[in-house]
């Protein structure tokens, strides 16, 4: 039993408590100090110049090249200092920054596919007033490239390069299948026939599975839909346009071709293929004979193709009434977020970095890997080869266009669902498209309650050069 005196802690306990309190105080103080230190560097030494933040997604050699150009720009400036930040090339940081309203002054971490969405949300500013007041002009670019930069009659972006999609084929496989390797398919009917001839099964028995696939029809819905003449979006009425007889016709063609090889069997085969950026690339190993690629694929071939690998290329063959020489354009776009505090300085930097003189150094170099956006740079001797002339014609073709619609990720998710449901036989093309249209349209109505930017000036408010 405790005596009344026993409630008083002994001296050693008091000392222990004192030590403990001191320890806790020390921990708290050091935590506060650490948290203060965690705020990181406050600013750079910029000699009083206006510092603008620039986010880039280019890494590796591209970042090295870009870094040199930015250093050069900073040396030439007595007013502006560009502080670049590498934000990894998946551009997710940019999406979160826009959603959270904490963006840099200028960025090239926006895909062309996302421009319409950001423009509709008033997250990026139109560049037209800046362009008008500068020595730069959209006339430096071909009409399709100009259109890529524009949405709803406003220019929202510029770029140094422009990407396109087309088809590459394995010449040796053509030869083995009795096809002329120098004459790729010219019509869609011919293309389907070639794909059949080039497909091989294990033990020559379709039940044993695919060994070589002439062409993977799965997963290319946007490119093919564009070739078939489908438009995706009307910005003036904010209406999705894919639920049309033409789209139904296209999906029926797609399903007919996929059914030839079996949907499940084809899915299984495609999921077993190796990484594109490696020698296990299925095109280089001969598992896929014709593939949809971008112009940058040439570099992959140069790096990883086995000796003597022969390849050719051609534009998507169009069906009757479709679009010849069609392609979908894309690019890493230089844009100015609405939250930018230094829009004029941001524009000055964009105008400089996307100008032909810089683009030549960034894009072309000794071995071009991408097609430059500016027409003047496209005429550079570095592009004077049959391959690059083909890419150039494709990029500047009247049927080259970018995908410009808001909620692009949602749209793509629903389009992939349409493909999946139709090809697996879960729904008819019409059923799948009606469901897609209804779902997408209700999402658009939910997100964008204001009238489209064409009927309002909100998109350009506060933007003065």
């Amino acid at each position, binding site marked *: 039993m405790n005596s009344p005196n026993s*409630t008083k*802690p002994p001296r050693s*306990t008091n000392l*222990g*408590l004192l030590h*403990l309190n001191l320890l806790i105080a020390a*921990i708290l103080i050091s*935590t506060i100090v*650490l*948290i203060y230190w*965690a*705020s*990181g*560097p406050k600013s750079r030494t910029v000699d009083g110049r206006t510092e603008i*933040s620039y*986010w880039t*997604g*280019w*890494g*590796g*050699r*591209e*970042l090295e090249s870009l870094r040199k150009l930015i250093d050069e720009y900073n040396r030439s400036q007595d007013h502006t200092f560009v*502080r*670049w*930040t*590498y*934000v*990894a*090339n998946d551009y*997710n*940081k940019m999406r*979160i920054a826009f*959603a*959270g*309203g*904490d963006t*840099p002054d200028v960025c090239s971490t926006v895909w062309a596919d996302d421009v319409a969405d950001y423009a509709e949300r008033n997250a990026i500013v139109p560049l037209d007033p800046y362009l008008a007041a500068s020595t730069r002009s959209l006339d430096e670019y071909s009409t399709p490239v100009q259109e890529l930069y524009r949405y709803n009659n406003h220019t929202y972006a510029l770029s140094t390069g422009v990407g396109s999609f087309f088809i590459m084929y394995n010449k040796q496989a053509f030869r083995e299948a009795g096809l002329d390797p120098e004459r790729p398919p010219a019509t869609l009917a011919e293309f389907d026939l070639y794909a059949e001839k080039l497909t091989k099964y294990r033990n020559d028995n379709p039940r044993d599975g695919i060994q070589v696939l002439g062409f993977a029809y799965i997963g290319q819905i946007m490119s093919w839909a564009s070739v078939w003449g489908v438009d995706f979006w009307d910005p003036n009425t904010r209406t999705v346009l894919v639920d049309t007889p033409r789209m139904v016709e296209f999906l029926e063609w797609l399903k007919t071709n996929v059914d030839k090889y079996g949907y499940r069997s084809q899915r299984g085969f495609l999921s077993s293929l190796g990484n594109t*950026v*490696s*020698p296990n690339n299925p095109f280089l190993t001969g598992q896929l004979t014709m593939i949809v690629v*971008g112009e*940058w*694929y040439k*570099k*992959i071939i140069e*790096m*990883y193709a*086995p000796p003597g690998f022969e390849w050719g290329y051609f534009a998507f063959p169009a069906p009757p009434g479709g679009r010849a020489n069609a392609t979908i354009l894309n690019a*890493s776009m230089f844009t100015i977020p609405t939250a930018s505090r230094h829009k004029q300085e941001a524009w000055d930097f964009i105008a400089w970095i996307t100008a032909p003189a810089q683009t030549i150094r960034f894009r072309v170099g000794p071995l071009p*890997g991408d097609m430059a956006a500016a027409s003047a740079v496209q005429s550079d001797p570095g592009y004077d080869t049959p391959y690059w002339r083909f890419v150039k014609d494709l990029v500047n073709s009247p049927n080259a266009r970018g995908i410009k619609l808001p909620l692009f990720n949602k749209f793509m998710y629903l389009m992939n669902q349409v493909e999946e449901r139709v090809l697996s036989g879960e729904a008819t093309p019409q059923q799948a498209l009606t469901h897609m249209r209804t779902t997408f349209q209700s999402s658009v109505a939910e997100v964008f309650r204001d009238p489209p930017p064409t009927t309002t000036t909100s998109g350009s408010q506060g933007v003065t050069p």
Partner: protein
Amino acid sequence: MNRRSADAIVSVTGHASLLALSIVFALPFAWLVSTSLKPPAQIFSSSPNWLPSPVCWQNYVEAVNTIPFIRYAWNTIFVALTSTFATLFSCSLVAYGFAVVRWRWSRPLFLVMLATVMLPGQVTMIPVFIIFKNLGWVGSYRPLIIPAFFSTAFFVFLLMQFFRTIPRDLIDVARIDGCSHFDIYWRLVLPLSRPALMVVAFFTFTAAWNDFLGPLIYLNDDRMYTLSIGLQQFVSQHAAEWHLLMAASTIMIVPVILLFLFMQKTFVEGIHLSGLKA
């Protein structure tokens, strides 16, 4: 066959199976180290070579010099250590409150806390970003460190399991001797829970060390970047400097391996005793 021979056969086959499994698990690491020492042309040669020829130690030098590796390493150490310290302190304190102290709302609040485990990070990512932005913390290490001071439900649960194995009598005796709850937590429960704390420390440290998305979202200055983002700089849009990436990755995982080796005994004990194994 006598019993001794049967035991020997079981033992040999058991060890052989474990060895084979160990090799399977070690292969990716061996390939990583091997690739880090290869010249670029040899990395994807059509016949895979395990042994680099010639051995390119230069890859390591180049990897460290291509990106500000030392700076990124210090930043990573800072974030990982502070997060680990904060998690250990906060989770053990909360776990003590739930496991040892008897109070009225303990059970419902525990369930509320557990419910947070079920919320995927993607759901909370943007709201949390907006909160940090409004606090003015974006662009600093604070969003990466301070949340650790508010405990993590999973580790609280893990530590609770361990704390409950401590004999109640021991705690009652301490109470009778005049110890406050904080005293019992600090002087009795924590020293007895070393293995479980080591598990939490190891998991937190490796998670913070390897975290990519957190630093990517919250840091806006490349000078503050951690190694996981730094390594991405070897990857361009359509290609990668694999030899440098592998060399830098090898250096990056060395501390985690060393940490595991030093803590192995305590770590395994902690996993066993906290019921994590089940």
